[in-house]
């Protein structure tokens, strides 16, 4: 009844009045806050669509918090159930004995009554100094170094700083603090887009609902509908911290986690009405 945070013996995870999640590591000097935001999709010329991500302006908007949260703690898992508002909610989980924080997010149906296209993102902001550098694994295997506002083969001048700094993620996006020798990674359960627009911060796009076709071929806006309302997307992120001093184990641990997120065991059920364990 009285618990206000979760985290077992590794983390202290709580929610503030705006629905933002705060995570403090108990065993190292690391702190992360997680929250949801959205971009308004461009609608005039060159709109945001199935082929293109072009926010209307280079600022992100906050989501109003009209929800609530509940804490559940038990012998195997501790959970924070957070409702942000009518179309964004999530469950933050820590399993006993597992060095990761699971974010089970649910986004949708994204409202369009105000004729505003929205592209919802989640942001993990840490106290790590990453100097504008982050890494994405845009092919599910190697990590590719990304530098904000930079291209390795020409001097780029980004007219659209947000879209120009977004990169494909297949299973992982990460950043590291070379002085603290700490790395923060977000593992995704599906291909997504992401960036690091501020030092120490990782941003991943979760769901989009757009109102104008981007005239690049599909001939209709990216406005997925199911059961007469906007599509609801549900997925999982793992937030993990890694020690750069122990690179060997760090790489193995992250690789195994990424695989376990993408290749969960197959669950098959056999109803055994009125049969005892011995018979089964």
């Amino acid at each position, binding site marked *: 009844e009285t618990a206000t945070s979760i985290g077992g013996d590794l983390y202290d995870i709580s929610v503030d009045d705006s629905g933002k999640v705060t995570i403090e590591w108990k065993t190292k000097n690391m702190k992360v806050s997680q929250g949801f935001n959205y971009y308004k999709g461009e609608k005039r010329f060159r709109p945001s669509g199935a082929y293109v991500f072009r926010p209307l302006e280079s600022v992100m908007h906050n989501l109003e918090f009209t929800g609530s949260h509940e804490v559940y703690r038990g012998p195997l898992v501790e959970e924070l159930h957070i409702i942000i508002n009518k179309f964004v909610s999530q469950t933050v989980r820590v399993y006993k004995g597992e060095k990761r924080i699971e974010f089970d997010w*649910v986004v949708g149906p994204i409202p369009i009554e105000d004729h505003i296209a929205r592209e919802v993102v989640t942001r993990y902001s840490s106290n790590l100094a990453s100097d504008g550098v982050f890494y994405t694994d845009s092919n599910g295997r190697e990590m590719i170094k990304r530098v904000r506002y930079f291209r390795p083969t020409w001097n780029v001048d980004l007219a659209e700083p947000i879209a120009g700094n977004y990169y494909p993620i297949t299973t992982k996006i990460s950043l590291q603090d070379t002085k603290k020798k700490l790395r923060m990674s977000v593992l995704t359960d599906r291909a997504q887009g992401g960036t690091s627009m501020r030092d120490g911060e990782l941003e991943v796009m979760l769901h989009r609902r757009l109102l104008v076709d981007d005239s690049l071929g599909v001939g209709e806006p990216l406005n997925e509908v199911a059961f007469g309302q906007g599509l609801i997307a549900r997925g999982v992120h793992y937030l993990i911290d890694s020690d750069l001093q122990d690179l060997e184990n760090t790489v193995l641990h992250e690789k195994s986690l990424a695989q376990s997120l993408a290749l969960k065991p197959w669950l098959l*059920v056999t*109803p055994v009405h009125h049969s005892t364990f011995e018979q089964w």
Partner: protein
Amino acid sequence: EDLQLFREVMGVMQHHDAVTGTEKQHVADDYAKLLYEVMVKGEKITSSAMSELLKSPGERKEPTEPFREFRSCLLLNISSCEPTENSKSFGVTLYNARSHRVSTYVRIPVKGKAYIVKDQLGNELSTQLLPIPLPVRHIAGRHSNATRELVFHAVDIPPLGHQSYYIDEKGANSTDELTKAD
């Protein structure tokens, strides 16, 4: 013939539109329908394959009838699984497709208020019941009676192998309102 259908549909899914989601809405809906149909047909293949795999070495006969059915739960992403919601006792078999030993926490959508989980040696496992978050329970199109998820820890599932658990609802005359104690 079922496997051939599966191959054909997966052939269609190699199209760049299917991979990236740049197809029109009705095409995306058709892709989803095609995949669903072949996954359901594939269930027959997995059931007979699991029956083979579950035959203990040297045992020649297949598991007897009720234990030969292995049903998938294709709606776990909205915390719905018809066989576990509507059975008081059921077996759960986890198939690990990776080439490494895997331990994982299993989450099963259920309706009851208390369950016993035993591994294949009869050892009772520690379990936990958690309410399914309200926004998930109210997802349009989710026709499920499950209000909770049963969690237990599956340890050391062998590579390219399986592990089975026996799950039995305690106090079958449980009422269904969600108490704080849950």
